[in-house]
């Protein structure tokens, strides 16, 4: 369409609006603006915007649109910014200059006015809406007046073309047409959603009508931008609502829109970077491709970090349940217990949090049932009648520590040993070699129980073996310490998140394995001279750096093949790759044939029955499609 012939008209009419607006703006000086002035100014800029947009004068349209928005907000009760008159005058001057340039056919874009800066200034001065909504704004008019109707219920599935302008208004036209056939008894989403800019063009309309299906179809068939329209009879009965009494933490997440915006930003960045990478590959520029890959990885990390944050949930979310349970237990056992929770504001991945509810419950049951003594016994022992269970949650790097401590009678190492011997869980020689920690951990062997009788509270449900299995399935660890007469402390070390871990991918005769990097203190190539081999095994001589003394310590060294059941290879002939680690307080070193790479791996749980293999905490799928089992260093060294 040839717009040149409208140019004169545009210039003269826009100039009229500018002059009238200048006059109104002059009245704003130093006084509270009157509603008539605000309305008039709104209309002037609205008119200029519409004409400029039609002429293709983008800058004029954008500027007048910004001022229009400003006055729209002001006339709805927003507080006028200081220097409003100056701001409007400045906008009018620029508009006027741009219109003048346009009048002589000067190319837009080569203007001396910095439109963008003025637009920013205007937009920055748009006040927020007053609390309680817009003043003087009419309450939303009902979209449709309902008329009584009878007939059959139909579900109309409406899809408006995604490219359509104002899809909500298009949908409103469809609803209006259907309305004429009978009565609309409901829509999904609600009709109010049509005005939402996020409305995606899909709406289901429940219509009661006596008219046949063909009449419904033909009522809407000529409507524009109606991409799909289907009519069907609704399901016989509405689906039963999902039970919300389920024991697990709710599976839905409320996300702030600002967070969603950030996610979208990250994804946009990824798309851009993917484009750059594709371009570099197409032009075979290796350097650029590497750079592009780095940038893309950066975006992915960024996105992952954001999603992880969304998944975090404070420990506090489960404390009401724990408190309730302890209270119930006290009532059943006649004991008195105060539950103290410290660090409830520490956040964990929601799936970790869900998974640790049962183990914590069980530990609390044990503490109340076996740990805390009856009030009379406690008083005899010089303790307060009320026992104390303390849950201490803290964060350490990318791990969360949950300590559960009671001031009860503590665990009896001798009884545990006796029960282990009697039950055939360990030989006398094995027991003799065990330290206190290992003895206490015997209680986590399946089927092990020292309880003289199965009491109502802790004899059922998960046992300590299940507690340990659950925690390890989350790539966590459990340790126990206890002092007779003083109490027991269980410590759970949990990863902040479960889905992805940083790991070394290593090779040995047995295949490919992943070692969680969190536990690895350092990686080095070790000369045979530094390795001493004795009858009890190999040791790596290592200079102590941590305490600055520089003294030599010897760390147990084992080759991965050996740890997995192969025969000891003795001292290697050449330098070997070694990962020095610290797991559950114990230090060790693992020799491997080759360290392939350090990378992030997505952890897949092994599932039953493989999850019983304590040496492995999961499996990781690698880029080439091969699978690496993820080593559990604590259980690997302890085995």
């Amino acid at each position, binding site marked *: 369409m040839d717009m040149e012939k409208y140019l004169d008209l545009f210039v003269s009419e826009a100039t009229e609006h500018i002059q009238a607006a200048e006059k109104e703006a002059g009245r704003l000086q130093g006084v509270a603006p009157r509603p008539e002035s605000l309305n008039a100014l709104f209309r002037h800029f609205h008119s200029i915007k*519409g*004409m400029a947009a039609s002429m293709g004068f983008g800058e004029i349209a954008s500027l007048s*649109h910004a001022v229009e928005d400003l006055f729209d907000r002001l006339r709805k009760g927003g507080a006028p910014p200081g220097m409003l008159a100056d701001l409007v005058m400045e906008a009018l001057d620029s508009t006027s200059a741009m219109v003048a340039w346009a009048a002589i056919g000067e190319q837009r874009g080569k203007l001396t006015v910095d439109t963008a800066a003025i637009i920013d200034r205007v937009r920055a001065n748009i006040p927020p809406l007053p609390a309680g909504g817009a003043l003087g704004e009419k309450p939303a*008019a009902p*979209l449709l007046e309902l008329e009584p109707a009878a007939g059959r219920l139909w579900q109309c599935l409406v899809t408006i073309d995604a490219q359509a302008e*104002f899809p*909500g208004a298009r949908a*409103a*036209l469809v609803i209006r047409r259907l309305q004429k056939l009978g009565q609309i008894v409901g829509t999904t989403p609600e009709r109010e959603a049509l005005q939402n800019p996020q409305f995606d063009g899909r709406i289901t309309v429940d219509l009661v009508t006596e008219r046949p299906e063909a009449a419904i179809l033909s009522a809407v068939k000529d409507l524009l931008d109606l991409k799909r329209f289907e009519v069907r009879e609704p399901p016989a009965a509405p689906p039963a609502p999902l039970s919300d009494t389920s024991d697990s933490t709710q599976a839905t997440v409320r996300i702030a829109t600002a967070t969603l915006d950030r996610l979208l930003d990250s994804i946009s960045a990824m798309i851009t970077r993917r484009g750059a990478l594709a371009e570099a590959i197409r032009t075979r520029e290796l350097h650029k491709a590497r750079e592009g890959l780095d940038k893309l990885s950066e975006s992915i990390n960024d996105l992952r970090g954001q999603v992880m944050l969304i998944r975090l949930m404070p420990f506090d979310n489960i404390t009401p349940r724990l408190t309730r349970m302890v209270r119930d237990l006290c009532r059943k056992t006649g004991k008195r217990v105060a539950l103290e929770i410290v660090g409830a504001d520490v956040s964990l991945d929601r799936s970790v949090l869900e998974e640790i509810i049962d183990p914590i419950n069980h530990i609390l049951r044990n503490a109340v049932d076996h740990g805390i003594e009856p009030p009379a016994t406690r008083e005899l022992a010089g303790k307060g009648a009320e026992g104390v269970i303390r849950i201490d949650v803290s964060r350490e790097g990318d791990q969360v520590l949950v300590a559960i401590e009671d001031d009860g009678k503590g665990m009896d190492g001798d009884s545990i040993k006796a029960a282990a011997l009697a039950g055939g869980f360990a030989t006398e020689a094995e027991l003799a070699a065990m330290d206190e920690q290992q003895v206490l951990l015997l209680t986590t062997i399946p089927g092990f129980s020292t309880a003289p009788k199965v009491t109502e509270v802790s004899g059922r449900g998960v046992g300590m073996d299940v507690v340990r299995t659950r925690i390890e399935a989350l790539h966590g660890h459990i340790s126990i310490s206890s002092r007779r007469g003083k109490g027991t402390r269980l410590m759970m070390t949990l990863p902040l998140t479960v889905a992805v871990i940083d790991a070394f991918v290593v090779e040995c005769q047995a295949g490919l394995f992943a070692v969680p990097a969190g536990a690895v203190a350092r990686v080095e190539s070790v000369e045979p001279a530094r390795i001493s081999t004795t009858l009890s095994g190999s040791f790596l001589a290592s200079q102590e750096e941590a305490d600055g003394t520089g003294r030599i310590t010897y760390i147990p060294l084992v080759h991965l093949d050996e740890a997995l059941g192969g025969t000891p290879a003795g001292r290697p002939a050449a330098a070997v790759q070694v990962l020095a680690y610290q797991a559950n307080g114990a230090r060790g070193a693992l020799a491997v044939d080759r360290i392939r790479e350090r990378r992030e791996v997505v952890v897949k749980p092994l599932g039953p029955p493989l999850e019983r293999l304590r040496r492995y905490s999961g499996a990781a799928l690698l880029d080439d499609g091969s699978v690496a089992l993820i080593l559990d260093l604590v259980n690997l060294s302890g085995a």
Partner: protein
Amino acid sequence: MTSDSHSDPNMLTVLIVDDALFMRSMIRDILTNTGKCKVVGEAANGREAVDKYRQLMPGLVTMDIVMPELDGIEATREILKGDPGATIIMCSALGQEALVIESIAAGARDFIVKPFTPEKVIRVVEGLTRR
């Protein structure tokens, strides 16, 4: 208005309502160029639109929303009160979707979003005349 403007039964008679002469001229040209429309009148605000509608009884009204005196939505309501069969399409601008939805509830038959192009206008007008 000459009497023959209503005489050709194949021509759709149109009343253009917009406070900007510029917009009215553009819409007039676009509609006239289709060869199917005859612009029988123009109005620069809602009050004028209601009066002109009663006089001319056009087959179609293009209605701007933001106007002095009486806005387009109110004018639509008044026109439909007098003639429930009136065909009114709204001329709206970006950011006015809520007003358009309100107009549809008031009885508007369709809408066009500015900036206007002949394609947009023709598409809507042809959609209406097919009915």
